């Protein structure tokens, strides 16, 4: 492969390591029961995002559009907006419509709050779905920003105060359906009442159906989101976003729900940290089951350490995902040498230093793209790439193993079932990474040992 080197960096983005903000909004809305995401913009936005999500999750993903035309772009999107909402209600009868703007509606200056007010007024007296709105101009931020902004919009729009209940809110980041299921299990085992937002563990990883469901079952209910204001604590998995603007921060400021913002619980140390909070919130010790899982994980770390020590890894994806993976890699002795994210929060260096203080000499490419990374990787002499499918081209060119984790996984089945969080997630990461390294060595070894 010829890596085209930039003299002073390219102005254009070449093979982006990010998607646009409305994408994140759709994914967050998919975690609400009976919710229909609705993009205020061109038809293509919803179709492209549907296609991209379907290729990863292998599930139906319906996203409505207000379907701008030339007239709409000139005279404003109000008419199409109202017609679109009405048609979604007729066709889907959703419990919630999750509205997100796009570059087009933002650029022409459509006033969505005003349009919503008018829509509600027109339907006064009739029961209509909850309408939540988030501003996601595609020219500002990445899909991760859209995701967090939408979670904030959901709690701002729905959460209510009230008598405090001994309950914990879990605000999960952009993780897999399998991760969400595992987090729910963990919290439930402490016997504490909880709400997890956004819960797309069923909506984006559901069973086979006997008849078609226009809206898949599962998701955080509107009532559950309402109740988040009366919980005692929130655990919010976020590292690289403005921590004053998160959903958890809103719940804390507005309703006094204590917020524990922490990195994704990837690896042993971050999982310990999460369980400490659950112990404190529930007044219970960590259940035996997780103590045993932790023990097996450490045993596996020991079994694997010789094969992975000081291996050089490249990690790419969303900034929070990178932060979690780097924390894990550091604790098993793998050295992250280059990390890449299209996200550009400005916090990534600090987040990594916080979760993995032992790491040094890491090349941090935030606000960057895959081609810029290719230049760095060529210099960094890595042993393994860890991240989404989009790294395959580079892995192939360099003949390096790629461990597919995170999002999107477009060239394998099972993306939705990848487990990253908790002790179990760490174990699964360890096995995949160690075996990829062993496999690579075995393949390229002349003798072909049948023992390790």
């Amino acid at each position, binding site marked *: 492969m010829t890596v085209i080197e930039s003299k002073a960096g*390219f*102005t*254009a*983005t*070449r*093979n*982006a390591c*990010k*998607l*646009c903000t*409305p*994408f994140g909004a759709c994914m967050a809305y998919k975690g609400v029961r009976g919710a229909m995401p*609705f993009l205020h*913009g*061109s*038809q*293509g*936005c*919803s*179709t*492209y*995002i549907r*296609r991209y999500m*379907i*290729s990863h999750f*292998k*599930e*139906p993903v*319906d*996203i*409505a*559009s*207000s*379907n*701008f*035309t*030339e007239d*709409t*772009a000139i005279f404003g999107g109000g008419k199409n*907006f109202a*017609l*679109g909402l*009405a048609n*979604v209600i007729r*066709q*889907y009868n959703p419990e919630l419509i999750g509205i997100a703007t796009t*570059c*087009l509606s933002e*650029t022409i200056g459509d006033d969505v709050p005003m349009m919503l007010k008018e829509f509600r007024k027109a339907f006064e007296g009739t029961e209509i779905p909850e309408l939540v709105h988030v501003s996601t*101009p*595609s*020219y500002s931020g*990445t899909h991760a920003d859209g995701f967090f902004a939408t979670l904030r919009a959901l709690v701002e729009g729905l959460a209510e105060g009230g008598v405090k209940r001994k309950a914990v809110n879990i605000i999960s980041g952009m993780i897999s359906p399998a991760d969400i299921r595992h987090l729910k299990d963990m919290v439930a085992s402490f016997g504490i009442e909880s709400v997890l937002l956004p819960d797309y563990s069923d909506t984006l990883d559901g069973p086979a*159906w*006997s*008849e*078609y469901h*226009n809206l898949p079952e599962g998701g955080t209910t509107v009532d559950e989101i309402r109740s988040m204001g009366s919980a005692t604590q929130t655990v919010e998995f976020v590292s690289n976003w403005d921590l004053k603007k998160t959903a958890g921060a809103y719940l804390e400021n507005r309703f006094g729900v204590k917020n524990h913002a922490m990195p994704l619980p990837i690896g042993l140390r971050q999982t310990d940290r999460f369980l400490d909070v659950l112990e404190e919130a529930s007044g219970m010790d960590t259940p035996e089951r997780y103590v045993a899982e932790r023990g097996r994980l450490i045993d596996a770390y020991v079994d694997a350490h010789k094969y992975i020590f000081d291996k050089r890894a490249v990690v790419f994806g969303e900034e929070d995902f990178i932060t979690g993976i780097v924390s894990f890699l550091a604790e098993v002795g793998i050295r992250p040498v280059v990390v890449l994210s299209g996200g550009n929060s400005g916090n990534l260096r600090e987040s990594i230093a916080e979760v993995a203080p032992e790491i040094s000499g890491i090349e941090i490419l935030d606000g960057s793209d895959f081609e810029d990374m290719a230049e760095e990787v060529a210099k960094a002499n890595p042993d393994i790439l860890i991240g989404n499918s*989009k790294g395959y*081209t580079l892995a192939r060119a360099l003949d390096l193993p790629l461990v597919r984790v995170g999002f999107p996984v477009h060239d394998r089945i099972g993306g939705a079932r990848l487990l990253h969080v908790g002790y179990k997630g760490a174990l699964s990461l360890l096995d995949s990474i160690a075996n990829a390294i062993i496999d690579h060595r075995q393949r390229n070894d002349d003798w072909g040992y049948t023992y390790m």
Partner: protein
Amino acid sequence: MADILDTRKAQIHRTGLEPFEMACEKNSLAGSVSQRACVFCGSRVVLYPIVDALHLIHGPVGCASYTWDIRGATSTGPRLHRMSFSTDLQEKEVIFGGEKKLYESLVELIDAYEPKAAFVYSTCIVGIIGDDIEAICRRVEAEKGIPVLPVMSEGFKGTKKDGYKAACDAIAKLVGTGDISDISDLSINILGDFNIAGETNIIREYYEKMGIEVVATVTGDGRVDQIRKAHGAKLNVVQCSGSMTHLAKMMEEKYGIPYIRVSYVGIEDTSKALYDVAEYFGNDEVMSNTSKLVEEEVSRIMPFVRKCRKDLKGKKAAIYTGGAFKTFSLIRSLRSLGMKTVIVGSQTGSKEEYEYLRELSDEGTILVDDTNPVELSKFVQEKDADIFIGGVKERPIAFKLGIGFCDHNHERKIPLAGFIGMETFAREVYGSVMSPVWQFVPRKARGAGGKSEEVVA
């Protein structure tokens, strides 16, 4: 089960059961969850396979991210088309304009990648923020000495079909700029095949075996220099008429090159395409080469097709495609496998195409234009289809209901065109319909013959 929106009912027809009146070629209904994309998508699909050109998408990053290496359009040479280039507009450019960023991006990329031409795609907000991309393209073209072609593909300015047209307009600017002195009298351009899994290469080989020179393939495995010479061909052979007829008509007007419409899907249509071209040239040697080719190819694949037919006989298919032209061939291909089409539709079919579909289809077939998941799921359940032939967005509808699926869109990795394509199509359909997994899916496991009461209700 939800009801079909009243405003959509005119775009659905049941053959033989009602007078034929089919609305189509309309803007998608807001909130209907159309399977269509946008104008940009139409342009991107058509130009994507030009492998030695730079494709720069001017706008926020999403449009480029979602179309990065999205198609299975392979190349026998350069692979520059697999790169995703975006000006990745940020808030400050939306306020102050993106022309400077576009200019700098273009200059740097052309210097670094040395493409034969550059296509600059306009996305939704480009016109609104006042960027004059045509002026920037002219300037860079003058400075760099390669064609720099604006593609006016703002997402909201029409449908995917308007995007095809914008792409053809850009290609038309290349045609006529190359030297045609060495082109044979027995020569054609292949229009409207996109080299998915090497299909254009398969078709080109057929023509070469027939003794016909292929001047340009537009756009599958496309090369800028070939397209520049396309006006030297004596005939345009157009597949996927929705996307390329516009170019063929422009070339007919300007250069007097006639065109014929063909399809390379299925035995019948592929044979007809090759014979039509041979007949056009009226050359005995070409005709005898063609007969020999068709005979050889058909006899090679027929044993397998017959084998599949034995098991597939009577199975029911649903078809949903981008353009309607392809559905004709698919219905015929399915018939050659003994199968029946019970639902057929397209995103962008024309009135004439639906009229023809009505004639071609069995009584009671559902014809549908610009449909959506609610309708499609309702129809496949009602008709109890055994396989769905469509694209990625239709696949989960089929799979959730325990219905087989065959990808006939641009993302697939296997060729479905030509004679060999019929063999792989048969294998694809057979491999899905005959899989043992369906016995476990709830819809089949519950009721006899897959018609559980729940579904009918």
